[in-house]
């Protein structure tokens, strides 16, 4: 469920990824270059969707979509 929401969010925030098939083991760097702007977009949209404030450094530790999903889930449960 969370994975589906995250993939939908990425497609919405980065329309250029709509042609890409994103799954849990897709490398984030392969679909979104992690520039400062793109990191800010991800942080903002994830906070709005999941009510989770990620640190930029935590985001950079995530290689795959699944890693990011797990991170959001962990922080969600901590709260």
């Amino acid at each position, binding site marked *: 469920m969370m994975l589906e929401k995250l993939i939908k969010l990425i497609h919405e925030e980065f329309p250029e990824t709509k042609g890409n098939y994103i799954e849990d083991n897709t490398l984030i760097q392969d679909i979104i270059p992690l*520039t*400062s702007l793109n990191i*800010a*977009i991800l*942080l*903002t949209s994830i906070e*709005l969707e999941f009510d989770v*404030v990620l640190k930029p450094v935590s985001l950079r530790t995530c290689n795959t979509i699944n890693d990011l999903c797990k991170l959001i889930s962990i922080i969600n449960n901590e709260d």
Partner: protein
Amino acid sequence: MVAAYPIDVVNTDELSFNTIIERETFKRKIGISQRHTSNGRLTAKDLGIVAFRKLLTGLDWGVSDIDLVVSVTQSSDFAVPGNSFLYQKELKLRESCHLVDLNSGCTGFVQGMITLLSQGEFLNIKKAILIVGDTDILSDETRTESNKLIGDAVCAIAFEKTDVCNEYVYKNYNLGLEYSTIIARSSGARYCVNNNKNSLSPVINMDGSRVFSFIAENVIPFLKEFESEKEDKTEYYFIHQPNLMFHQYIIKKMNWETERCPTIISEFGNVSSATIPLTIIRHTKYIKCERIISLISFGVGLSCSALQMSMSPLDFVDEIGCLC
């Protein structure tokens, strides 16, 4: 209230990006179509002098009427002395005129207003001028993304004591723990302790992602407290706009109506402490009668200020495009 900004404009379409996608993402999320810039040819003081003069003419005030000047900028002509003394010299303000300089960025308009109002009360000031704003001379050109955000603008705002007692609600929040998020690291005495004085540089660096964390973790809870503490309902919110994405984020989290939160980001970019007054100038149609407004600013420090007040229609409003 008068705004002065360079007449020259940089259109975002003219800027270099690594890819077309990057450009489109920038335009869509940051929301800046153009910025006014002097390309390093004008300082905040240059624009401030123009705004100050125009304001005095428009209100038919003489320089000898001014009892207090509060200058807010982080791009003053010199580290020492502050710009207020240069305004006094160039405009021939009275020698007994009170002069105050605040070194502040995006939070500066509200901080400047509070300083002016409290000093004005203490000193029984009749007429005062607040001058706020920056030019982009000090941004870090090697950081291409932040270098595309900042526009040049300075606003001069006149205050006159009246018999009407205006009540206001003010709240502030400061997080010095995160002072290095927006910093001119190679400036000042601390840098000289361990480095060659000849390598001093006033260039300002900003970590945009950490600014977002500050907004999400500190500014939003602060604003929720502010909202819960005031009795009157705000009719219009004039909010500092670092970029469109953060602006929309704040509005969404606070459940404020977009129509009540006017913006200028598309045409001016992030214009530091001049953002709020310039937004008021651009949207004076909202203040055709007495209104309850809230002014929300946040930035370097890190800091955040919120002020709710009633605002009557302004006596004089103008904008001046300055030749560079």
